[in-house]
């Protein structure tokens, strides 16, 4: 530090005894009116004495806001002068909203109109729904098929394409009604719908190879529309272990499902998804499934992606597209439990692990196909 600056510092320190003097020095410093030596000396003092530094900073802040005030004031004066040059009245005459009466009315009362429109809509829709109550109330159409007329049609077809028809090994006469069923045990217990075998004099079941076996009805449950058949035919040889399991817990909406059934003489695959957890008119014993089915599908198994049986196809809504109903698998088990255990042999059970799990759809069907039967009813 040069001797000169030291001298200046001492002179400033000397003046500092008087507060006014210090303020004047700071003021001059901020205005840039100090000599270079004096400025350097003051900066030195600021470093050494926080009190002085603080004074400088607050003074600077205040002067800055004073300066800003001045700037702003002159800006506002300039703008006022500019504003005077404008002819605001004629401008606003030119620019003001020019809308027709109708548009103005619309703008002002937009929300009122909206409320009125909404009310009107609501009224109309409620009137409509009173007249045509909108929930699914189409008639419940069970899916057994009346074979005779279809069969006749097919017979004609068979005559023209003779080689394609499978040889029927069972009784020669035509069945009256048809449905689908699937094996519950290896020794020939089958599950189908009650309505399929209702009024039956005799029941035959036919597997995918075309072999027919006589069967008798061993359990009927009209309430849940479930029936259990037992193959009594002597030609019947016990099946291999069942590839599928029953699945008890409820499936969620959107779960992909498929069914195998006999709407014609060969098995037909139908694929869809659970569209509701309740069936016709809110029936909790059923699922609503969006799956294309036809007469003859009744009693077919409804399987999930993993090959678990989750229900039995029963019926469809005839006024609603894609509303098929399937009884939940729990009621199959209830029906099975009604039959003496020792006669059942090895039966299908609820299980977590399933041999079909992980197989692709084609492989699953390959295995299941042998356990799904066409039910033929004579009366």
């Amino acid at each position: 530090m040069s001797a000169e600056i030291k001298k200046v510092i001492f002179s400033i320190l000397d003046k500092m005894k008087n507060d006014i003097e210090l303020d004047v020095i700071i003021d001059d410093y901020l205005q840039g009116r100090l000599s270079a030596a004096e400025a350097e000396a003051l900066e030195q003092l600021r470093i050494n004495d926080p009190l002085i530094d603080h004074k400088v900073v607050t003074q600077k802040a205040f002067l800055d806001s004073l300066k800003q005030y001045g700037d702003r004031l002159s800006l506002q004066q300039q703008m006022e002068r500019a504003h005077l040059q404008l002819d605001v009245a004629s401008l606003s005459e030119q620019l003001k909203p020019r809308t027709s009466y109708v548009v103005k009315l619309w703008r002002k009362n937009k929300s009122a109109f909206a409320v009125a429109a909404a009310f009107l809509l609501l009224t109309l829709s409620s009137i409509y729904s009173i007249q045509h109550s909108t929930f699914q109330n189409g008639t419940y159409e069970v899916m057994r098929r009346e074979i005779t007329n279809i069969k006749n049609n097919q017979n004609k077809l068979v005559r023209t394409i003779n080689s394609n028809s499978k040889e029927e090994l069972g009784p020669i006469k035509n069945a009256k009604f048809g449905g689908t069923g699937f094996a519950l045990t290896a020794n020939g217990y089958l599950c189908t719908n009650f309505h399929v075998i209702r009024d039956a004099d005799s029941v035959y079941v036919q597997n995918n190879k075309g072999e027919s076996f006589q069967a008798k009805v061993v359990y009927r449950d009209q309430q849940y529309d479930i029936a259990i058949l037992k193959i009594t035919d002597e030609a019947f040889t016990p099946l291999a272990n069942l590839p599928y399991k029953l699945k008890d817990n409820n499936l969620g909406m959107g779960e992909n499902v498929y069914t195998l059934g006999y709407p014609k003489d060969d098995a037909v695959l139908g694929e869809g998804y659970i569209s509701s957890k309740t069936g016709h008119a809110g029936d909790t014993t059923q699922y609503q499934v969006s799956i294309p089915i036809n007469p003859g599908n009744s009693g077919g198994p409804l399987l999930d992606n993993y090959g678990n049986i989750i229900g039995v196809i029963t019926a469809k809504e005839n006024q609603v597209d894609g509303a098929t109903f399937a009884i939940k698998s729990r009621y199959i088990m209830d029906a099975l439990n009604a039959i003496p255990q020792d006669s059942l042999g090895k039966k299908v059970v609820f299980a977590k692990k399933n041999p079909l799990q992980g197989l692709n759809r084609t492989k699953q069907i390959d295995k299941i196909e042998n356990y799904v039967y066409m039910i033929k009813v004579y009366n």
Partner: protein
Amino acid sequence: MVSNKLSDSVPTDREVVLGILNNSEDALNRLYIGYFPMILQFILNNNGDEDDAKDVYQESIIILYNKIKSGNFELSSKLKTFIYSVCRRIWLKRLSQQSKKTSNLADFEDVVAVDVDIEQHEEKDLQFEKMGSALLNLGEPCKTIIQDFYINNLSMQDICEKFGYTNTDNAKTQKYKCLQRLKKLFFQS
């Protein structure tokens, strides 16, 4: 609705920014006259009158001015769009303060998201008013001395002559006392 054409005398954006940086009154003047009709139209069509338009417009110009002066102004959109967007935001805020319907503003220009801190601007507004009233309360001749020295950058010599002080030291002491009183008034209010 057809947006009315603005007059041709609107300066280019570059001219405005440079003009404001150089304290050109002409640039500001042309800017002011150039874009006022746009804002007038906007306010008139959204439940406001001429005075509202003037108020909002001047506020947006002050914001623009401060932004340019502070040096961190980047011309990311057209000035016209910037001013319009700022005015739109200010007006929306005022409308909501008056709890008027603000659901659908009738727009006449493009709107950009402007990173302008309206609250910060209002804070500055408050400071401005505080300083104004402090100066008013300061009374004469202090007010003029302070303004001449700190705002108009007159020298002590000029002030001496203007107010008839016998020497600059007297004027300095007077100015010092005035400043102290102004500080007191400013921080008290």
